[in-house]
């Protein structure tokens, strides 16, 4: 009898180890969307160009690559532009249903700004449950200490409640289109778009199967900074920028996991590290100032 019970218990534990384990792989449904505050109510903040295109391009690129590579995955998208990108909508629980949440607008250490006049969302007011978040906003994850010499500029842990990783910036960010005359006798117009970053990110992460951090840092490098004109756009100039990824780390299914390495096709399904995790970590890149010999 005791022997049978032991066998039964072993069997239950064995089955549970599969059932209860966090699943890795592709989602059956992938939902992507977000908030683009390009203009602000009654111009209470300056226009931040590139937001509407950034959101549109991110959604369409992700959907295109998923359809090509993983046709079995169903897709859905939700977009909030300008007057719909309110604080109320951002804080609404239904935004948690998006697997990938995007935000484009002004920000600073620990907060982002919404459409409505003087409305901000602070790190203590929004706990992300999405799989991934990208905040295209200045300085939200600013590095270093405040003038008191003790308090860090940004406190990242309050944003987390299951989100695998948050992509953002520790520096200022630029958006919009740069146009200039180019070509024969300057008769043509060359344009460089900030939303090429979102497009390259989707291509690298989904089509090229890179890790989320590698996809983001190189998309920023190539499109918002410079990379020897890899994409042949004859950029008029480049500017420094610091991309950053923030994540909680620990063990999942008994194995150490750091979400900066997460790949789209092998991602954990569902929220992670809501309660049990070892700590919070971040990675960022500083791009060296180019120097040429001559």
């Amino acid at each position, binding site marked *: 009898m005791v022997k049978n019970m032991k066998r039964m218990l072993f069997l239950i534990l064995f089955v549970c180890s599969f059932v209860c384990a966090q699943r890795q792989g592709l989602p059956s449904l992938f939902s992507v969307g977000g908030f683009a505050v390009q203009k602000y109510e009654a111009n209470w903040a300056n226009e931040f160009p590139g937001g509407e295109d950034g959101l549109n391009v991110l959604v369409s690129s992700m959907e295109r690559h998923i359809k090509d590579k993983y046709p079995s995955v169903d897709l859905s998208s939700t977009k909030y532009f300008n007057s719909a990108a309110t604080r109320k909508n951002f804080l609404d629980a239904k935004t948690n249903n998006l697997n990938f949440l995007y935000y484009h607008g002004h920000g600073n250490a620990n907060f982002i700004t919404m459409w409505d006049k003087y409305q901000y969302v602070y790190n203590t007011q929004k706990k992300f449950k999405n799989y991934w978040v990208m905040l295209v906003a200045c300085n939200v994850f600013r590095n270093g200490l405040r003038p008191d010499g003790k308090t860090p500029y940004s406190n990242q842990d309050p944003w987390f409640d299951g989100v695998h990783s948050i992509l953002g910036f520790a520096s200022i960010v630029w958006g919009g289109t*740069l146009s200039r005359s180019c070509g024969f006798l300057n008769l043509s117009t060359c344009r460089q778009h900030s939303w090429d970053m979102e497009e390259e990110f989707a291509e690298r992460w989904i089509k090229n199967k890179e890790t989320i951090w590698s996809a983001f840092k190189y998309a920023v490098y190539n499109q918002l900074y410079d990379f020897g004109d890899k994409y042949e756009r004859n950029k008029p100039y480049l500017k420094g920028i610091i991309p950053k990824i923030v994540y909680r780390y620990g063990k999942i299914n008994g194995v150490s996991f750091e979400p900066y390495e997460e790949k789209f096709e092998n991602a954990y399904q569902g929220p992670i590290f809501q309660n049990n995790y070892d700590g919070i970590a971040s990675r960022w*890149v500083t791009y060296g100032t180019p120097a*040429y010999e001559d």
Partner: protein
Amino acid sequence: MFKVKILVILCLANTLFAQISVDDQARFEIRKTNVLAKKSDKSIDENYIYEVVDDRFAGVVPKTKKISFSNYDRFEILSKTRRRVALNDKNMRAAALRDVKDLLPKEVGDSCAVTAVNLEYEQKDNGNPRVVASSVLLHRKIDGISVRGNSFINMEYDSDGNLTRFDMRWPKYQKRTVRSRLSVNEIQKSHNELLNQRVEIVNKDIEESKVAVKGKIKKSYRTLSSIKGSMGEEYLIPSVTYVGSFNGNDDDNEIPIVIDVPMDESIIPQEKAIASKW
């Protein structure tokens, strides 16, 4: 040669004039233009241009796995070195030059220079940030002049300084002698106008963003920068690359800024441009 010297002197004078006009209205200043003058001693003794004749690097790189992307090739290292070096600018420059010479044909190793070392940091909890990875960008040199864009090697290193992979674009170029369609005065005027135009773009951006206070050009280099003809054909043309930086409102960090200005855009071959109109 005499004509070229005159051109250099006039170019300097004109650039200094441009400095004053830019300073009057802009927050991004053009300074130290004397650097340009010094570098220009090695001036061009004829007008020339390089045309891309083959987009890809044809060589074989042993002990790597090659993956081709639309505009470049990636080489993943199959057997890593067992290096243990601190990731800093000096060590990574040396490592990158050594690895390029070990892995790639001599003509590649002998004709490139490190242009930027990027460092990746990791911070866990409240610990001090540590450098955990690095990437080193090398640009090609043609006839001893650095190429801005379109010919590069980007090398990625792990936390111990071992190369993990590199991306490469290394087209074949053909040098062509061309004639300028502008007079010396027009060349100077055109160069300065382009420089001012681009500085204006920077200023407009800075003004709109309201996050940067001021900046300045600190250095200038003779380079070859890429430009496309109206048929989409790709050229390298003699240029000046201005490297500077600016500061944010509440940030002590200097943010780099780079502006490429062709010396004389009129040397882009005309026949293809005209053909495109038909």
